[in-house]
């Protein structure tokens, strides 16, 4: 097959491809955070969980040779951190935002501490599906090489949406998020619901972290995550606690993250660092435009501390 150059068309293509690749961790973390926040708690510690998931996933994949086992272990490390957050926040007078910051520090600390020996070795990566086999262009093929985890994330979106609406569990979680009093009156334990929701949210964030180290960028180092976990929290607010909107917002953020490298690939390097800040600026801009000092946001769980 002959190589076909795409020239400037490569930029939108690279952004699209980047959107899919970069968005996967956003997608998982935001879905997890969406679940947690729907139960009435905010977990800022998902940044730490993400790094922890990346490290444990990479380490397990390297040691056992099975990237999927790595993903599972990453998820379980996420459950551990989620449960820790949930437990500490169950104590009286404890601020969930502050605990999140603390777990961010602890998660990254433990990940760097235990992950030191795994910076050098190469672990097996997660498999990808070639959806671009029909194209002669290498760029198109690279763009359409889609990771299985992304597809799992895509399936999770309607599943979560459906469960929030139609299952007993979904209803109970939403009730805990909207009124702790009503939940108590119904005979459920608010603490337990929030603990389980935070733990499950942590699982998803851990899986998102495994994507970072096992697929894209696909290695373990200390600069792997740069605030993705935190941006995902902001993204959930932007998505108004709706899993479907979380998906669109993740794609948007992924695209913004791919902007810098995409422009660099066609030779625009002048403002590389500024373009790299695009996701942060975008997050901030979106928060400025969607927040309001006068009313709580539509769709916000009313027990949530950030929206009060």
């Amino acid at each position, binding site marked *: 097959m002959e190589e076909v150059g795409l020239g400037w068309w490569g930029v939108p293509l690279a952004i699209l491809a980047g959107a899919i690749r970069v968005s996967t961790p956003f997608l998982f973390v935001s879905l997890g955070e969406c679940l947690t926040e729907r139960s009435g708690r905010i977990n*800022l510690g998902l940044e*730490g969980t993400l790094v922890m998931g990346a490290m444990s996933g990479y380490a397990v994949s390297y040691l056992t040779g099975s990237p999927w086992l790595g993903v599972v272990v990453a998820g379980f490390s996420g459950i551990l951190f989620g449960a*820790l957050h949930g437990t*500490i926040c169950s*104590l*009286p*007078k*404890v*601020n969930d*935002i*502050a*605990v999140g*910051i*603390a*777990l961010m*520090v*602890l*998660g*990254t*600390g*433990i*990940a*760097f*501490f*235990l992950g*030191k020996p795994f910076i050098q070795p190469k672990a097996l990566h997660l498999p990808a599906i070639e959806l671009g086999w029909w194209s002669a262009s290498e760029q198109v093929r690279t763009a359409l090489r889609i990771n299985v985890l992304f597809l799992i994330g895509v399936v999770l979106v309607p599943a979560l949406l459906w469960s929030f609406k139609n299952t007993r569990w979904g209803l109970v979680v939403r009730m805990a998020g909207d009124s702790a009093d009503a939940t108590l009156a119904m005979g459920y334990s608010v603490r337990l619901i929030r603990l389980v929701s935070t733990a499950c949210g942590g699982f998803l964030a851990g899986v998102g972290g495994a994507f970072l180290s096992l697929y894209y960028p696909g290695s373990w180092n*200390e600069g792997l995550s*740069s*605030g993705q976990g*935190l*941006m995902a*929290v*902001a993204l959930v*607010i932007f998505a108004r606690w709706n899993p479907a909107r979380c998906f669109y917002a993740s794609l948007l953020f992924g695209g913004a993250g791919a902007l810098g490298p995409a422009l660099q690939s066609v030779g625009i390097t*002048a*403002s*590389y*660092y*500024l373009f*790299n*800040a695009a996701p*942060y*600026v975008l*997050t*901030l801009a979106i*928060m*400025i435009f969607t*927040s*309001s*000092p*006068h009313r709580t946001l539509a769709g916000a769980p009313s027990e949530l501390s*950030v929206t009060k």
Partner: protein
Amino acid sequence: MPFRAGLEAVLIPLAALIFSMVLFGAVISLVGVDPLAVYALIYKGAFGTWFSWQNTLRQTAPLLLTALCVALPAQLGLVVIGGEGALVLGGLAAVAIALAVEGAPPVFVQFSMMLVGMTVGGLWIALAGVLRHYRGVNETISSLLLFYIAVAIMNHLVEGIMRDPASLNKPSTRHIGDANMIGAIPGMDVHWGLVFGVVACIVVYILIFHTTIGFSFRVVGGNLRAAKMAGLPVGRLIVISCFIAGGAAGLAGVFEIAAVHGQANASLIAKYGFTGILVAFIARHNPLAIIPVALLLGGIEASGGLLQRRLDLPDATKLVLQGIAFVVILASEALFGRIRFFQARPA
């Protein structure tokens, strides 16, 4: 403050710190290192010799100022965690102004560095305050996003127009010149940032607890609705407190430039802003308590190198200790008011 309540405020965090040291020891022994050896090395690296004391004090200086960046907005109920961004931009602005007024008398250069660095740092955090009050944007998230943006701005300028062509491997700005550097406190190898930090803590303490505006800060933090009913200018108070807070972090950046590095490069991002968050939380946002806590955590920072060299522990060891301490300290909040001994006896 009644004696027993004061005792409570000291003993509970202290017990929490000791408990976190024990937990940290457990983690350390998991990787097969003797925790007692680690404790001994931390003590030695932090406070064991005059050399390590000076090292500790050098680390303490920026922590005092970045902790204020968290503690002051906390009086109004805000959780600002982007002090590192104000530090970075404050330092960068200091370099810019020093190079702009090159050739002026050193005292003038140093004064303008402080003024400009504090203003830029202050405006950066004030932006988070403005967004909080006028747009309802959560200040915790916005201030952290502002940190990442600050780093991008610094990289852009240091790799671009402010780059010294002579810096090849590590892009840096030009050096501000040895004459313009702020020297050491006489008799010790510690720069003046330490004195400024301690003074700043005392000044902010007086501001919070002995002035009208400080009282207004605390009313806003205690009960927002009551503050509004009383006619306090809540928005202005939020922005002012954030400006002062950012100014403190910006000053930390100025000293990192003017007393340590002399030029802006990646070394400026040393995460003092993030350790400052922990300092403020352990000190329970009391500016006077920040002084001993910053010394303690400065000691842990200073001993990191020794742990790395002697026991071959990764640099992140201190991050693990900090993370554990942070979590335990927050959990210990639940103990306040629960231990009968500390409660005032009914008269």
